[in-house]
Every structure is written in structure tokens, then in C-alpha cells.
């Protein structure tokens, strides 16, 4: 066993897990506040990436402006989705709302193919290209910067939700809606806030994923791995999303290296099955949600 090589692979795995953690955070935010399983999280991430592509490549805006534009645009999408599709379903069975997000995913894919065609595209290069060395180990620069940006954003989001009134309101709403409502917390606005924040985080994750692997109308499958991450980590646990993200990133990297690229997804889903066997609190299992 070559330990240096193993370290290098693990490092790459952990770093790419950072993006999983970021996308999982976007998912958990919506689930925690509104109890909606947003299956379209991968597609919202894709919209963020395509908006970035449009602003930076088509309109030739500077990178920072394109990022802001993409984040705001996707946030707007989140607001529209919440207002027009999710809120009217308030009080309906969870499975109905779930199916609406499944439909939303298809609609978003269709939208992307209509506007941008189904061709694969590359995002403009905006990250430094110098290889990064951690000790003896080499880390692809894009993966490294992706992880750094993910870590920074996750940190910022956690701080905001720890110390800002709106974040406290969100945690209170997640804990007991009726009590929050009677406490002067505007629960519908908290729902909107959660969707907008989630969409914005997803946009950043989408831009990073696109920068590493290019964008296409099928990049929403990234959402599948995110789903594994959140089920493994616990649907409403922020900490679970972070640990789960890094863990799944690691599993994929190890499986991809030692078993071959085609075993990546197989390995993650085996992990999912194993986790569900040990902690059988599946998607619609019970109200008891396990944290990793």
C-alpha cells in the first residue's frame, strides 16, 4: 500500500466532498424549515451554473458580476418556486409536494435544453491554475478552490443562521411552527427565506461543479449524490450534511481509484443501503430523523 498515494486520493475525495456538503446544506435548509424534500436541488444548481455561463460567456461580464448575477437569478427562481408551487400546497400530504419537486426537476431540464440546447459547455476559466501541494500530495487546483469556497460559504451560512434574527426565526420555525407563529415570527416569510437562501447556495455549488466538470443539461444528476449525502447524514441535520458530504466524497474518490470510475455511484449507493439498514429512518419513514 502506497500511503502517500492513498493520502492524495483521500485529500481529493474530501475536497470534492466539500461541494457535496454545500449542496446538501442547500437541501437541508429547505427541509429543515419547510419539511419539503426538494428533489430538484440538482437542477436548481444547474440553473445557477447556466446563468453564470450566460452572464460570463455570453454577456462577457466580469467574473464577480457573473457570480452575483447567477446567485441573485437563482435566488429569484427559488422565490418563484416557493410562491407559485410550494406555498399553495401547504398542508397537503408530503408525497404531493415531493412529486411537485420531481416535476420541477423535469421542467428545469426542459427549460435549459430550450434556452441553451442540450450541448455540453465549458465555463470560462476563472480559478488559478497552479497546482496545489499539500505536503507531498498533489491536489487539482479547481477541486481545492471549490472546497475552499464551499468551506467559506458554509461557515458564513452557519454564522448567519446562528446569530442573525432571521436564522434564529428559521430554527424556531423548524422546531415548532405554531409556537413560532404565535411568537411574532412570520412563518410564510421564513419559508420564502429558506427557499431563496437554498437556491442561492445551490447556485454557488453549481458554478463550482460546472467549473470543475463543465455544464450540461444532465448535470442535475449531481443532485442524486446530494440526496445520498442528506439521507446518510440525516435530512434535517446541518452537521449531518457536512459530515455526509465529506464522507460520500471520500467514498467516491476511493471507489473511483481502486475499483474504477464506473463503481463510484455503486459504492455510494451501497453506503446508502448500509446506512439505511443500520438506521432505518428512510425518506418518509417516521418523524424521527436520525443524525449521523
Amino acid at each position, binding site marked *: 500500500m502506497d500511503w502517500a498515494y492513498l493520502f492524495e486520493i483521500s485529500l481529493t475525495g474530501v475536497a470534492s466532498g466539500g461541494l457535496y456538503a454545500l449542496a446538501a446544506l442547500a437541501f437541508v435548509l429547505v427541509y429543515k424549515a419547510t419539511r419539503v424534500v426538494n428533489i430538484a436541488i440538482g437542477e436548481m444548481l444547474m440553473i445557477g451554473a447556466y446563468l453564470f455561463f450566460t452572464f460570463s460567456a455570453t454577456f462577457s461580464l466580469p467574473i464577480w458580476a457573473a457570480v452575483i448575477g447567477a446567485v441573485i437569478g437563482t435566488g429569484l427562481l427559488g422565490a418563484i418556486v416557493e410562491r407559485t408551487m410550494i406555498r399553495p400546497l401547504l398542508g397537503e400530504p408530503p408525497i404531493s409536494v415531493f412529486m411537485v419537486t420531481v416535476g420541477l426537476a423535469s421542467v428545469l431540464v426542459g427549460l435549459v435544453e430550450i434556452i441553451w440546447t442540450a450541448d455540453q459547455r465549458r465555463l470560462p476559466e476563472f480559478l488559478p491554475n497552479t497546482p496545489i501541494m499539500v505536503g507531498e500530495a498533489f491536489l487539482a487546483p479547481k477541486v481545492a478552490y471549490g472546497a475552499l469556497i464551499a468551506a467559506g460559504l458554509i461557515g458564513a451560512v452557519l*454564522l*448567519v443562521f446562528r*446569530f*442573525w*434574527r*432571521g436564522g*434564529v*426565526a428559521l*430554527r*424556531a420555525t423548524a*422546531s*415548532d411552527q*405554531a*409556537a*413560532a*407563529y*404565535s*411568537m*411574532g*415570527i*412570520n*412563518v410564510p416569510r421564513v419559508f420564502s427565506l429558506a427557499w431563496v437562501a437554498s437556491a442561492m447556495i445551490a447556485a454557488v455549488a453549481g458554478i463550482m461543479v460546472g467549473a470543475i466538470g463543465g455544464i450540461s443539461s444532465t448535470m442535475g444528476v449531481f443532485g442524486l449524490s446530494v440526496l445520498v449525502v442528506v439521507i446518510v447524514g440525516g435530512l434535517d441535520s446541518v452537521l449531518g450534511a457536512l459530515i455526509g458530504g465529506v464522507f460520500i466524497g471520500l467514498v467516491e474518490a476511493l471507489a473511483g481509484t481502486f475499483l474504477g470510475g464506473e463503481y463510484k455511484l455503486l459504492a455510494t449507493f451501497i453506503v446508502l443501503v448500509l446506512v439505511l439498514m443500520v438506521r432505518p429512518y428512510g425518506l418518509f419513514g417516521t418523524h424521527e430523523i436520525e443524525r449521523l
Partner: protein
Amino acid sequence: MPQPAAVPAPAAPVLQVEALTLAFGGVKALTGVGFSVQPGSITAVIGPNGAGKTSLFNTISGFYRPSAGRVLFEGADITRTPAPQRAKLGLARSFQNIALFRGMTVLDNIKLGRHAHLKTNVLEALFYVGRARREEAELRRDVEERIIDFLEIDHIRHAPVSALPYGLQKRVEMARALAMQPKVLMLDEPVAGMNREETEDMARFILDVRDEWGVTVLMVEHDMGMVMDLSDHVVVLNFGQVIAQGAPAHVQADPEVIRAYLGAGDVGDLRRKLRGEQTVAGVA
């Protein structure tokens, strides 16, 4: 006839309920309920199970929209005002089944009560400057020195609420409601499931809230002894209708109330009465 000088003229009621009707489909939970709450009073709503007490509470606090009638708070019509706005106006409530924010500490729960009154924005909060610092300091002083002290929960302020015994959780819920700086405090069964000693403590707190804090209290309660001891005004609900209201002694003596609620073997009586009415209605 002029009123005797010794009796002050009644002040304008702080809370008024007028001809309130609430229906869920074909089921009427409340029919033409009306009463008013005088400032500085303790008003109790009593009635058998299913009489509509909690429905009434939920309508007053804005969780349900009545199909007819009005709710007035300090003279203003709030029938269409959303619940969070009512909280800001000064209408605080507790819940029959404790609704604390689990996973948070006692202190966090209580401080959340002040949420509606805070104005700090996200940047001020992040860097903890200006208004954030001022509001937090003020909140801390008020909560720690007045509320926690008053309710005698100093020893558990950093405990997670889910680990507390039932009686203490009720007390924390009341503390949270007080942190909302309410004008009217609505308590839904404040002593349900409490033992004698806990009940007496709670009764003392309710009296003190009125006497020392000047907060008007409106409560739903099953404990007859406590209702009769504490209340200035009692409203009796039965099948969604007010069957009597007035001073405790007056209500206690009301034959209708005794029949419907207080008398022994009342369940059989009630059933017979209900069936009789339905038969009559059916015949008519």
C-alpha cells in the same frame, strides 16, 4: 341614575370578542360567542371538553379565521390581522400541549419571545455592533433580571428545555410569553397535569403577572378551584356557545352551568339534554 363615586367607571375593554362564529365544514366549533376582557383583570374561559375553548383561543390569537364576528384589541378590529402581527400588538399566548423550541436552552427559548420587537439586521448581528449590541444587552437585562428571576427558573437557564420536568416547561413557556411584553397574556390550561404544589406556584405567578406586571390575563382552565379563586370574570362555554358569564360566585350559582358542567353525573344529563334538543329540532 348616577353611579356611586366609590365604584370607578369600567374602563374600555382591552379585548373584545363579538358574535364570533367558527365553522369547520359543517361542524360549528363556536356560535355567536361574545365577551369582553377588562384591562387588569383575570378572565377565565371554562367549559366541558370539546366546548370550543381552545378553538376560541386559536381564533383570538389568529390561528383560525372566524366565519363571522369580530375580535377587537384595544378598540381596533384585528379579525383579519395575521398572528405574528397580533403578537407585536401585545397578544401573547401559551399552548395546551407545551410548544417550546426543543433543542434550544431555556434562555434561548425565552429570548425568542422578544423576536417580534427586535430590529437588528443581518450585518449588525454578524458583527455585533450598534443596535445589535444595544438590543442584546437590553434583552439580556430584562430577561435575566426580571423574567427568570420572577418565575424562579434561574437554576435551569442553560438547561435544554426537552430535559425539564413538565411543570418547569410550563413555567418556561410562560416566561417566553412574558418576554413578548404582552398587554394580554393568554394561557391555555396553565396548570393541566400539575400536582397541588405546582398548581399553587402557577396560581401565584398568574396573580403576580397581573398585580406586579400589569398584564391582563385570559386563561382556559379545567381546575375549578383555581378558576374560582383567581378570576374576576368567568365565561362558560358549552357546545361552542356562551351559556353564562359573570363573577365566579354568580357563575357557580347558575343552574345552567351546574347542569352542563359542574354537577355530578353531568355526562348523562348532558347526553339526555342534547338528545332531547335534537329530537325536538327533528320534529320541528
